[in-house]
């Protein structure tokens, strides 16, 4: 078990080095990449099964005792996030191989593996400073990936992305310094007891500073402006994995820090307000856009609001709903971006006024788009409906009607902008100046996307067991003793 906790992070780091050396042989890189991400996935499954059976687990790197050394710790929430992320990383890697993204740039594989390591470490880490390091590993990898082609547009948007994230990272170092000055520790389990001795004002300040830092990564209102600008310019598989995972790492950090370090007795008005505004402003942005990837990027922002809504309620049901929503969102959002990428690949553009009539020419693509699109909008019986229903129920149970009403309205607007893509790209007459011979999407791209779409259907189909699992994860988050005991013994 303790080895399994290291593996999801250590395997990709080691493989990244090997992949760098073997840059000349793309086949070696491909086999290595797929094998290692599969290995990380297997280790993540072992972690998930282990924590489901025995409760939260921890391991101390180099046997340095807990508050001093580097601690890796996993509870159910960690396990769920690890498994879902690794499945996505694997599917998108296969898609990228199908699209030959790695043939165009030989640093793709090593950097992608580092991204996987950074994501795994930020889920597993048990102390704040290590979380900072994990964020930096995955961010530096993402800086390289988002500017991979080095085109003018990529450099421009990449610059915004890097600068905003660097400012957030600096604030994170500052927050770590303040936490250490106030308590003398950065270990999160140790902080649980030590933060109680800190004066209320200082504790609130630390909590808000961390919320801002993670909020920039998670793209919550009003810190989301960088996201719709920078994501769409990267190659499709990269945008897809960023859309699915990176903001959710931020959300994970928000949920972890708010539940573990700064738990609220009842619903938190600040978080609920942020949630409502994030949902609403994000979807309004999406309605104004004309490009498939940009519409979907604004939807990421909008969807983050739902997750914060679940957290803001600070009830078991709310947290369970939020975790279920994250799982649903990662799967659905990644598949939507992958389909968007295939549209761009086959038609040569993602602009809605240059597309049309794709239902006839590419019926499979249309189906692969329709399922996640309806799911995103929360139409029954898809996974989005299950996730939104559990959040709405949790909201009603906590008597927070206003924010639930906003979330339902946003669901309607989401459906509206999804029909915009549908009507623009898939229905209607093809534009007159369209290329007569559209390319076919390679089998690997279609296969990877179809697998993820099938997975989103599985989430809806097994909604009952899934909800039990997330409810148990939420219970572990709310009751902090097991987590603290796993780390400090």
């Amino acid at each position, binding site marked *: 078990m303790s080895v399994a906790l290291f593996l999801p992070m250590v395997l990709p780091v080691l493989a990244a080095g090997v992949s760098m050396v073997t840059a000349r042989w793309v086949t070696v890189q491909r086999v290595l990449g797929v094998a290692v991400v599969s290995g990380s996935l297997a280790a993540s499954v072992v972690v998930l099964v282990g924590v489901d059976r025995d409760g939260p687990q921890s391991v101390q790197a180099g046997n340095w005792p807990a508050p001093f050394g580097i601690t890796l710790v996993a509870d159910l929430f960690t396990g769920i996030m690890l498994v879902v992320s690794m499945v996505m990383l694997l599917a998108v890697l296969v898609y990228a191989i199908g699209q030959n993204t790695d043939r165009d740039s030989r640093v793709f594989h090593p950097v992608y593996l580092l991204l996987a390591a950074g994501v795994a470490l930020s889920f597993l880490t048990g102390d704040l400073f290590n979380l900072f390091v994990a964020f930096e590993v995955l961010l530096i990898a993402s800086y*390289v990936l988002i500017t991979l082609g080095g085109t003018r547009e990529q450099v*421009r948007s990449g*610059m915004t992305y890097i600068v905003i994230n660097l*400012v957030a990272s600096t604030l994170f170092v500052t927050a*770590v*310094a303040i936490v*250490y000055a106030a308590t003398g520790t*950065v270990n999160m389990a140790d902080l649980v007891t030590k933060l109680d001795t800190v004066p209320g004002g200082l504790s609130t300040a630390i909590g808000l500073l961390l919320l801002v830092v993670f909020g920039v990564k998670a793209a919550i209102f009003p810190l989301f402006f960088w996201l719709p600008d920078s994501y769409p310019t990267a190659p499709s598989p990269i945008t897809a994995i960023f859309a699915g995972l990176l903001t959710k790492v931020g959300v994970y950090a928000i949920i972890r820090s708010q539940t573990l370090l700064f738990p609220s007795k009842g619903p938190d008005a600040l978080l609920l307000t942020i949630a409502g505004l994030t949902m609403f402003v994000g979807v309004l942005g999406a309605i104004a856009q004309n490009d498939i990837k940009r519409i979907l990027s604004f939807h990421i922002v909008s969807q983050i609001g739902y997750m914060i809504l679940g957290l803001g309620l600070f009830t078991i049901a709310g947290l369970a709903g939020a975790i279920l929503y994250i799982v649903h969102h990662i799967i659905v959002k990644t598949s939507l971006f992958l389909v968007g990428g295939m549209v761009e690949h086959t038609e040569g553009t993602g602009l809605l006024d240059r597309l049309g009539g794709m239902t006839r020419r590419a019926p499979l693509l249309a189906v692969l788009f329709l399922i996640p699109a309806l799911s995103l909008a929360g139409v029954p019986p898809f996974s989005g409906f299950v996730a939104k229903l559990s959040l709405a129920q949790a909201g009603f149970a906590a008597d927070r009607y206003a924010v639930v009403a906003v979330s339902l309205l946003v669901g309607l607007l989401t459906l509206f902008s999804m029909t915009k893509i549908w009507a623009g790209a898939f229905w209607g007459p093809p534009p007159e100046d369209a290329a007569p011979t559209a390319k076919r999407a390679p089998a690997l791209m279609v296969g990877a996307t179809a697998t993820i779409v099938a997975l989103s259907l599985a989430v809806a189909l097994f909604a009952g067991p899934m909800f039990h699992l997330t409810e148990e994860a939420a219970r572990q988050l709310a009751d902090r003793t097991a987590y603290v005991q796993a780390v400090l013994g």
Partner: protein
Amino acid sequence: MIVVLAVTVGVLFSLGTYLVLQRNLTRIIIGLALLSHGGNLLLLAVGGKAGDPPVVGGDPADFSDPLPQAMVLTAIVISFGVTVFLLALAYRSWTLNRSDDVEDDVEDRRIARLGIQEQEEQ
């Protein structure tokens, strides 16, 4: 001594914030470097009185805390690496555009134009 450090951190943060808000890429990068120096210095100041050795020799009561020093080393390396990458990107931007300014988002400008058009039509 700690007051000097605190004032330095404050000055670095204010200068850094001012520079990051500029349009010019070089200034933004220098601003980010100053900001991260401010953060690192703050982390170092947390470790206790300046001048005391960490761990080596003497009475444990006189040690300065080695943990923040280890953390600050990591943070320095990270900010160094990222700054170098940013400089490379700024050079790339210069070779592509022959200008050192941060550009507007094309799509944003298009949508802003649509809004103005609509207002004029009304």
